[in-house]
């Protein structure tokens, strides 16, 4: 390498180091971009995929689910166990048990697309915690709907209390069995 080329290489190399240092110094004075969770939280996008939940019908305060089990069949991971019973005076079944095994759910959305009544949706929960595994492996969606219904009922005191059917016999398939069902 000629002398001049060697000098130029050293000089350019050194200048590149100074440019790099200038960039990081510039970054030093910009605002921080991390969110200090849990003191600050982020708002989730409207389409964010949390675990699924039953939709509360704003008119009647009941679930739209008729326990047709299409979601159960559509799920690739066998997470869902649904059961329902027909109440007196109603044409379709109402859901009595809806157990979700969230430990195997992959949030693919097949159940939501399969449902013909739009009875399930993604929730916006991203920070559920618990001390026991049961909270997630046997997530009781009916119970969670009931809690939301109570809040809904408080906001509309004039509405008649909706009649939730009593839990019937245990559902036919539990979420824990991992047998591969040929569809």
């Amino acid at each position, binding site marked *: 390498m000629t002398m001049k080329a060697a000098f130029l290489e*050293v000089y350019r190399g*050194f200048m590149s*180091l100074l440019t*790099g*240092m200038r*960039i*990081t*110094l510039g*970054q*030093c004075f*910009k*605002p*921080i*971009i*991390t969110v*200090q969770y849990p003191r600050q939280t982020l708002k989730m996008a409207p389409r964010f995929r949390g675990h699924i939940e039953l939709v509360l019908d704003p008119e009647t305060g009941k679930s739209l689910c008729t326990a047709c089990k299409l979601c159960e069949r559509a799920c690739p991971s066998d997470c869902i166990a649904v059961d329902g019973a027909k109440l007196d005076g109603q044409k379709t079944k109402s859901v009595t048990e809806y157990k979700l095994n969230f430990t195997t759910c992959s949030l693919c959305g097949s159940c939501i697309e399969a449902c013909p009544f739009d009875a399930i949706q993604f929730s916006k929960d991203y920070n559920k915690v618990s001390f026991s595994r049961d909270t997630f492996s046997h997530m009781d969606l009916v119970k969670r709907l009931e809690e939301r219904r109570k809040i809904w009922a408080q906001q509309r005191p004039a509405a008649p209390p909706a009649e939730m059917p009593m839990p019937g016999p245990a559902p036919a398939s539990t979420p824990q069995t991992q047998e591969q069902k040929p569809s």
Partner: protein
Amino acid sequence: MSAIQEILLGPGWPWVRLLLYLVGICAFVGANAAYLVLAERKGAGRIQRRPGPNESGYAGWLQPVADGIKLLAKQVMVPPGTDGFLYRLAPLMVMAPPLICLTVIPYGENLVARNINVGLLMVFSLGSINVMALMLGGWASRNKFAVISSARIVSQNVAYEIPMLLVVITLLMVTGTMNLNEIVQHQAGWFWHWNFFKVWVNPLMPVTFVIFFICMLAETNRAPFDMAEAESELVAGAFTEYGGMGFGVFFMAEYANIVVGCSLATILFFGGWQSPVVILSGPIWGPLWFLAKMYALVLTVIWIRWTFPRTQFYNLLNLSWKILIPVSLVTLLLTGAMMKLPLLLHHLF
């Protein structure tokens, strides 16, 4: 107040003065080691646009306390099969040189523990002991990879001592004395009297400073020259077998070395405790200016670490042998020529 002034500045009470200095230096090194770690993590955070430690204490100021408690609470274990004496000796030998070097560094006009006439020489000879101590640490661990790693540290340090000494010789020609306090006193006045700006004596003075800075980074095994310690990602680094406070001492020694190196750089190039404007000087302003300049250099060292990736080992050595040594030789010759130029011209005309 006057009693303290008499002790510090007067001729009597030499042993009390020495004791006060030693305690002060140990406290200074301890506080530095602790809070420089915090400064590094916070500086890294700001460069990476995140806050850095901010949970313990207000804005993270108790983080070093938490780290210290954690290190102290670990079991001090001497692994079987290692050379017990050398294993325990290595952290002590690593910590001793920076502490001793700090006794000759003038923090203010009269604030120097021992104003030795060969202060500069002493600092550099102690730097070599540092290398030996690191080698001992790796060797005593009886770990194949620790030995390879310490061998690398030694070759890196030896390679970078040479340009550093050439640079220092250049400066000695400019200043004419090895007494650190006198070197600072020669740079009195406005900031253009500092050695960094004396381009009529050495036209490549800023380049000399850059070489000194790079060598200082390499001597203290700081990024981007930290092949030896960061190898612990893959191969064991030199300090794997040290746990708890043993490791803590190596860490503290690294920061103490950085402090010594930056103090030396401020004394040699930036006027030590001299103020850049003549007005704000005095017995209180002196140490403040010194600390300000030193910490500016320490922050630059931290800044450099978080900006660049690591150099490869042979590139590191190439840089020293093929680039830094020729350039420092050139500056040496140039300085010599420039100093003798007036005489030569006088003889010619």
